């Protein structure tokens, strides 16, 4: 089981089983969350897949964001320490249990 938990903008937490081998963004989109626009389809051009990583499984780690990802996030009014673009996070078993929150609409 590879679980992903997503907190929507209204604060509700939803959990579902993720699919390994695609991005976190694609997982969230496939699960039907319409708050995550992901307008550029995951090619690191839009920053509309912005979320906060609230909890990571203890043994997991995320690669640091690329320069392009950091620069795109820089443009958000809602950037936080734990901000990420979800299309840039490959989802695998080690991330099972991750909790993320969808960032406010720009």
């Amino acid at each position, binding site marked *: 089981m590879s679980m992903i938990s997503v907190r929507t903008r209204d604060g509700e937490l939803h959990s579902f089983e993720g699919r390994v081998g*695609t991005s976190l963004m*694609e997982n969230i*989109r*496939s*699960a*039907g969350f*319409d708050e995550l*626009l992901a*307008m*550029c*389809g995951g*090619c*690191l*051009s*839009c920053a509309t897949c912005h979320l906060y990583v609230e909890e990571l499984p203890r043994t997991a780690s995320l690669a640091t964001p690329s*320069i*392009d990802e950091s*620069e*795109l996030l*820089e*443009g958000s009014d809602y950037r936080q320490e734990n901000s990420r673009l979800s299309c840039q996070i490959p989802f695998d078993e080690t991330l099972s249990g991750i909790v993320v929150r969808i960032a406010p609409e720009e």
Partner: protein
Amino acid sequence: MTRENHNRFFDCVIVGGGHGGSQTAAALRQSGFTGRIALIGAEPEVPYDRPSLSKEYLAGKKSFERMHLRPEDFWTSRQVELMLGRRVTTVDAAAHVVVTDLGERFSYGKLVWAAGGEPRRLSCPGSELAGICYIRSKADCDALVEVLPGAERIVIVGGGYVGLEAAAVFREIGKDVILVEALDRVLARVAGEPVSRFYEAEHRAHGVDIRLNCGVRSLEGSNGRVRNVVLATGEKISADIVVVGIGIIPSAGPLIEAGAEGSNGVDVDEFCRTSLPDIYCIGDCARLRHGPGIRIESVQNATDQATTAAKAICGDLKPYDATPWFWSNQYDLRMQTVGLNYGFDSVVTRGNPASRSFSVVYLKDGAVLALDCVNASRDYVQGRKLVDSSARIDRDALADTSKQLKELSPEAL
């Protein structure tokens, strides 16, 4: 009103299941719309991400399944009735009825027209030959991918984004590529000269034979398949496939016939309302009467106009004022555009194109209108603020890459 048959009445009928249409349905539900919604789309597929067609999908790097804009069951869970594989052919605006090519009649409370566009076809002699491909829909792209393995030499007609993105993909899989452009530079309609020259140089360095100022006179074939492209100069180039990317024609026919104002697309106001009662139009086929009076062909525009129309339908009138943005990926180059350069009178190049990371800033009367940023996400992000505020910044300061754009104070003149 034709409400006798309740099943055939929808509080909102959306025509077109692309970026704009699907977002309209989603945004209606997000805004609390509880009425019946029908999404009528000519393509058989559930709404998908179109830009990937000329990029990862053409390159075989992304499966179609990963391009669905929403999972299939999203539509059922949101009570949106997906009616795919049929085309609306007639709109009766007075009766509030649409008719499809399958002969169905649906009456509507509100109608949102999000029909996008059809690729502009070649019209010269020989343009009916087999082996001439377009890239607008999944079906177009699949037809192209099917003939690709047997093709060594590909001629691309048109140096716009779609043609250039396809050229990049074809070079990456080792095809011979000749790109023919009628104007004196590629991207002439959308970008300034430094951007055009940069992309020409990149494509040439990757082995694309770019021919500028070069029209196509005719196509010659054998056994019904294209074999040669005859240029206006009389020169003949052989081709196994011809890929055409010369823009789109907005799919507005039935609305215009129904009496909607517009010619190249349907005219809409700042709430995406057409001149017809209860009919909205969004995306590639909508022409904003306000501002420069142009159509904007981008995912951002289709998506944001969808939200504007959905909100207006729910009684929340918020004028459309999103800052336009666009992207294009070719080879390892990421281009991001913010703002519309329409009507610019000067440009400043920021950074050195030879370093493959630079931006072009478009100005009108000294105010920043738009930026094209190539491998320069920082400029894209920071430039947005300059566009939003129509900042006036000294040209030398704009060109000085030792300072970030956000450090530049407006009115620095």
